[in-house]
């Protein structure tokens, strides 16, 4: 297997991790909104920010794969 192939697998693994993370954030945010619809706006804001943090880790993986 070439180094590019390994890099592609690494990028895929990073995507799996980010998918799990964002999925959990989304699920919990939906739960919280269903329980307390009155603070929906606040939950949405923090969910977006947290998703950005999780996504950044996956993007580090993608950039590393691109550089290789």
């Amino acid at each position, binding site marked *: 297997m070439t180094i590019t192939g390994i890099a592609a697998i690494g990028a895929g693994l990073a995507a799996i991790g980010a998918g799990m993370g964002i999925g959990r954030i989304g699920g919990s945010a939906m739960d919280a909104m269903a329980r307390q619809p009155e603070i929906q706006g606040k939950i949405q*804001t923090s969910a*977006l*920010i947290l998703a*950005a943090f999780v*996504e*950044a880790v996956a*993007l*580090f993986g*993608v*950039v590393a794969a691109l550089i290789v």
Partner: protein
Amino acid sequence: MTLNTFKSVFFSALFMATSFGGYASENQENENDKEFNAKEMIMHHVKDAHEFHILDWNGKPISIALPIILWTDQGLVTFMSSEFHHDDSGSHIVEKDGLRFVKYHEKIYQLDANAQAVAFDAEHHPTNASKPADFSITKNVFMMWVSVIVLLLVFISTARVYKKSSTKIPTGIAGFMEPLIVFVRDEIAKPMIGDHKYKKYMPYLLTVFFFIWLNNIFGLIPIVNGANVSGNIAFTLTLAVFTFLVTNFSGNKNYWKHIFWMPGVPVPMKIFLMPIEIVGMFVKPISLMIRLFANITAGHIIILALMSLIFIFETTWVSPVSVAFSLFIGLIEIVVVAIQAYIFTVLSALYIGMATEEAHH
């Protein structure tokens, strides 16, 4: 969503998707003898360039020539990029002031005497040419100036509305801009920085928000989509450095104390935490930089890759699938460009808020 907004969003996305297809097919036509290389086409599209290539018409490229400004050993040399005659393989030599230049893969090399073409050694350093400092007005710089002019026009006319009206009721363009500006104030600046200190940082946050958003939107417009301004790492680096400087120059005693001598923990822990906090100080702007760069570049790459599928499979039967998918991705991108501008601004505000926070005890 009203029917009208839906219509306009739908048709702009349709227009976008079809134009991407048009671009790809022109590329293919031009390189009929060569095998279609999706990676090359996409990378050419995503990268910065010295001329503004719009499309190929009957095999002839139509493009806007941009000025090339070089700083060589003999001083400043300027000429228009049209003098290269769309050559990017380093074979067309331009002579200016006794110096000879070639363009190879969007980099400009100054040939030594007697050299006819640029040659490279194993580590890709040129052996018979040197690289002059390049201050050219490239495609990205050009597009950035366009968005600066648009922002100036929009905001100056908005300000004029408030100056003229005695009632302070927004009319015309101000009616469109006011909700956006109030959104940045009430949803970003106030909750992240605090009600007392947010005013000082509003100009910075508004500038960052609208500048990134507008550049992201320009990246989605088909004719100018070659200019991938906010998907350029130098552009996002500059914005992240601004956030870094604003954060650290507005940092109070409390902020620096938390970095160098964390209060409320034992002394060995204080020593252990100091390097982590110092690294964290730099990781924050770096993650801002990578996030914006990677998100916008990934969007461009996905749409172009879907369109390349037609040419990879060499059949038109794939085109409904790739058009439908790139339409879908294009619609998502309209949301993503706004969210990325929002995220960058929110996180900048969050970091500034952390730096200006007062001690709790």
